[in-house]
């Protein structure tokens, strides 16, 4: 147990000026340790996600064990597996139904870029439909890599200001995907 990295209290909580810390940090930390994933598992990578949820890798250590199959409750859309062109609109709708703040991980080669399936029916990467925050390479990625991806999202969540979702850049990003 000794070598477990423990979250430090947000800076500023110690010492006299304890309110100097911004709310952003605290909420960012809270968010990062409570990323409820929506496993959008279509194929092979979904099985690896099962392994990630399983006892040996245990995604719950990161507070991300409660899979929310309802997009309203999810914070993290994990797209795992091939997204065919037929599936694209569904994926987009799921993304639209999610509440802010939302993050997207493209797990595996198929979701990130189409991978080996360079064919008429496969979407060449989900970032043509929705904005993606983290790409996890591998086909399928090992659970370790999926956890890496999750930790990357945690990192993003911790460093995101509370107001980011209201900024112009973010709106422009959504606009570019026509999801606003």
């Amino acid at each position, binding site marked *: 147990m000794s070598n477990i990295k423990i979250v430090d209290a947000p800076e500023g909580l110690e010492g006299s000026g304890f309110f100097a810390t911004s709310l952003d940090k605290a909420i960012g930390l809270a968010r990062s340790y409570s990323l409820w994933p929506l496993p959008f598992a279509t194929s092979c990578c979904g099985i690896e996600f099962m392994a990630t949820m399983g006892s040996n890798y245990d995604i719950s*250590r990161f*507070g991300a064990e409660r899979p*929310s199959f*309802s997009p*309203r409750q999810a914070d993290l859309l994990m797209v795992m597996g091939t997204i065919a062109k037929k599936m694209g609109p569904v994926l987009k709708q799921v993304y639209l139904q999610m*509440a802010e*703040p939302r993050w997207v991980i493209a797990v595996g080669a198929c979701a990130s870029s189409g991978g080996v399936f360079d064919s008429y029916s496969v979407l060449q990467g989900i970032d043509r439909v929705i904005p993606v925050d983290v790409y996890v390479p591998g086909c399928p990625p090992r659970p370790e890599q999926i956890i890496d991806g999750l930790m990357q999202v945690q990192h993003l969540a911790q460093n995101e200001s*509370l107001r980011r979702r209201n900024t112009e850049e973010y709106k422009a990003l959504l606009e570019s995907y026509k999801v606003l």
Partner: protein
Amino acid sequence: MDTVLIVKAIIVVAIFAISMLMALYETYAERVIAAFIQDRVGPDRAGPFGILQPLADGGKLFFKEDFIPAKADKWLFILGPAVAMSTALLSSAVIPFGDTIIVAGQKIDVQGMDVNIGILWIFGIVSLGVYGILIGGWASNNKYSLYGAIRAASQTISYELAMGISLLAIILMTGSLSVKSIVLGQHGIDWNIFYQPMGFLLFLTCSLAECNRTPFDLPESENELVAGYHTEYGSMKMGLYLFSEYVNMFISSAVLASLYLGGFNYPGMDFVYNKLVGSFGEVTGHNLATAIGTLTLFLKIFFFIFLFMWIRWTLPRFRYDQLMNVAWKWMMPVAIVNLIITAAAELSGKPLLYNWVGLAIFGAIYFGLFPIFKKKTVSAN
């Protein structure tokens, strides 16, 4: 007078706060217990041993975008979680969390209020708990939610009956509707569970059903109905639903502990009381003894919460029609039989002995006659 009121107010607030805190940490406990049962380690990043995990969840839920689906019924959509949470919290009022404490020369109950219809109160509030789910599920305007709501409503109504009848046996034994007097009647180790083993099992099962826990978690069974009645809820509204479930679990455990496991009674309590009074004086000793009783109660509550989770992570869930079958064809008759046995045992004057004798007779009849019935039904088909 004033001190008494203030102390009472403090107790009420404390009960409230404890219920909330318990609910908060039950989520953590659920995660850890689930993890341990499944050979995992559970949350261990947010704070030491993941102890800050509930805070992280809460913080996230509070700051998540709160939106109401366009097709939803706006007011009822908001009302649903509120009702669920408030009804869940209300029933903690009549649970005696301890004996009495002596403040300023007066004995004050460690209880929200000691009404002589305590059990009816619990019963009434529990029956209202379904409104939160029903309203929320309907207002979401989503078919999965509606199915969840409908399942929740029919399940709660069905299981309330068996619950009520199994409770009647307890009332018959103690002759009081006040929870406090029921608890006081189980002094020492004279617990009701020894008189009412079957009633206890029935009540336990019904409380599982009332809390929507596995094997009765049909309203939110995620493999069938996505998330059931709270499919459309996000952010803190869903948080309230989740919390209310855990508050319900806490209250159920407390009720179970009070009614069947003697509440704040524990074996050898008189000895402890006398020792404490002897060494610390009348007031302090009494208060200390009460504190020990409260601790005992909480230990029992923890046990029940653990049991609930243990059951949840072991058993598969029922199907809708099987759930109804169990309620109406199994639990109701058995509860009535239990009631009759209890009544007879009470009349006999030796309740402990004759309760068991009655149960034994019932068991013998059941296991002796059931095969014959079964054969008949098979041949009828």
